[in-house]
């Protein structure tokens, strides 16, 4: 890893990661605890020739991001709970129109305005199912300031590869803490595949393209395409009355992500620390820092996914089958539901910990010891 060594907040590292990934457009709306991302982007983007705009609300922010993406520019927004709720309209639109974009959600406590300055992981299901309709996204959860940088780059790369909205599912713990970060200069970046410039694209949305992801005919290059949020046929034209067209379209939108679950997990990576124990702890994001410490004390195995969506049940079965599993998360049980579907549900337990701070390692140890009787 070569690059400048800095001591930054997670939110600042996220902005730097975006710029390293090639992001040249940011539209957003201030909201705690994500605002430092917008502030840093407003300073940094003009330096690298990029555009920053503060929109009138979060709905408009993600709309502008999608517009910029269709203009051929990598684009991002950042928000937290209440703003993420407003963005769901366009999460759904971005999924339907296959628009690469990155949405950072620095999670805080909810429902509603909840705990603006406190941490939470209660938007795990919203990241996947917050918008209406059948679709899939890529969502990654960073546990360190370095991962705020690295996983922002990964979000852009998967958004570009799959033409999907990608969510950096961060939380106030990692968003606000400062840590050493290497602003890597050697990041691998991925750009969406484009059709030949000047060529009219008659089938911009083929029903079964190679790899399930068609090239993106961005505007202003002579492709003359119609892009709509309505169910559309391969020409991009509304075909709202044809059940077969709808079935094939939404199946492809989901399958292009689902069928790559294993590849995404392998590529983005996960932590698995195996120890001689019947107990495995599972945690992600800011909360995982507690659990890594507790597991050492308990001499327990730990699984820390970085990829939250798409979930890969095969991977979880391969790694955790046979353990008593304790999932620790800062909500009333969201990721644990996915784990329960992958494993024998009787062996899966949860330490549900909303409130604004991750549990202390002592609290996790106490819970694990109670579990083991």
């Amino acid at each position: 890893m070569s690059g400048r060594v800095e001591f930054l907040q997670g939110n600042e590292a996220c902005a730097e990661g975006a710029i390293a990934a090639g992001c040249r457009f940011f539209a957003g709306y201030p909201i705690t605890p994500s605002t430092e991302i917008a502030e840093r982007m407003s300073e940094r983007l003009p330096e690298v020739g990029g555009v920053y705009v503060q929109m009138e609300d979060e709905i408009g922010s993600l709309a502008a991001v999608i517009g910029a993406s269709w203009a051929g520019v990598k684009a991002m927004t950042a928000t937290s709970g209440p703003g993420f709720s407003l963005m769901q309209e366009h999460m759904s639109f971005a999924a339907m129109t296959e628009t690469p974009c990155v949405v950072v959600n620095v999670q805080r406590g909810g429902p509603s305005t909840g705990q603006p300055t406190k941490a939470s992981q209660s938007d795990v299901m919203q990241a996947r199912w917050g918008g209406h309709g059948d679709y899939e996204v890529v969502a990654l959860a960073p546990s360190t300031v370095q991962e705020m940088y690295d996983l922002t780059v990964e979000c852009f790369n998967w958004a570009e590869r799959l033409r999907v909205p990608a969510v950096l599912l961060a939380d106030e713990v990692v968003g606000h803490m400062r840590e050493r970060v290497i602003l890597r200069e050697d990041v691998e970046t991925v750009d969406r595949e484009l059709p030949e410039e000047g060529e009219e694209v008659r089938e911009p949305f083929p029903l079964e393209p190679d790899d399930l992801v068609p090239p993106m005919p961005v505007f202003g290059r002579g492709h003359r395409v119609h892009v709509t949020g309505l169910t559309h046929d391969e020409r991009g034209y509304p075909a709202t009355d044809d059940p077969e067209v709808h079935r094939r379209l939404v199946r492809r939108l989901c399958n292009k992500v689902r069928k790559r679950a294993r590849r995404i997990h392998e590529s983005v990576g996960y932590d698995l620390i195996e120890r001689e124990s019947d107990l495995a702890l599972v945690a992600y994001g800011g909360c995982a820092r507690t659990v890594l410490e507790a597991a050492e004390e308990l001499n327990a195995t730990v699984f820390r996914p970085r990829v939250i969506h798409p979930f890969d049940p095969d991977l979880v079965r391969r790694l955790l089958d046979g353990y008593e599993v304790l999932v620790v998360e800062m909500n009333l049980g969201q990721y644990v539901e996915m784990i329960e579907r992958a494993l024998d549900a009787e062996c899966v337990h949860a330490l549900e910990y909303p409130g604004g701070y991750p549990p202390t390692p002592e609290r996790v140890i106490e819970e694990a010891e109670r579990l083991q009787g």
Partner: protein
Amino acid sequence: MRKEVRISGFGGQGVILAGVVLGRAAAVYEGYNAVQTQSYGPEARGGASRSDVIVSDEEIMYPYVRRPHYLVTMSQEAYDRYAPQVREDGLIVYDSTLVEPNEEHDVEHVGVPATRIAEEQLGLRIVANMVILGALRELTDLVSEEALKRAVRDAVPPGTEEVNVRAVEQGARGVRE
């Protein structure tokens, strides 16, 4: 080695910056691991403000300070609130211009007239945070003087580097004397 440091005072004294500088010195210039956290929102306005730093030669996982080894405090309110949390073998460094220590707290105390030094020797009250940080460094050797000064130069507003570095030096001198 894992040390938990809490720097506290009231809003406007630069306690956040002091924590950032200490963390930066440790993480960027000493090759240690360091994590800095702070209070946000209504809690951070007025009243007691705090900036927490953990410095370790091992990986820091749980990022929050539980029982500080070192408490640096620049206001009575912060002293009263945080002094009881300091470890028995810990150290409290307080700004003796502003804080009256309480003998009930059976922990080693060192008073440094940071605000007075800042005003009288540097002509700039707002560098009291760097004075007391210099004193903490001198007393604890958490990071080297060189690392601290480099971090100060990186983190303070351009044009104020020298006065802030001198503040660190005066703080160190204050506890040596």
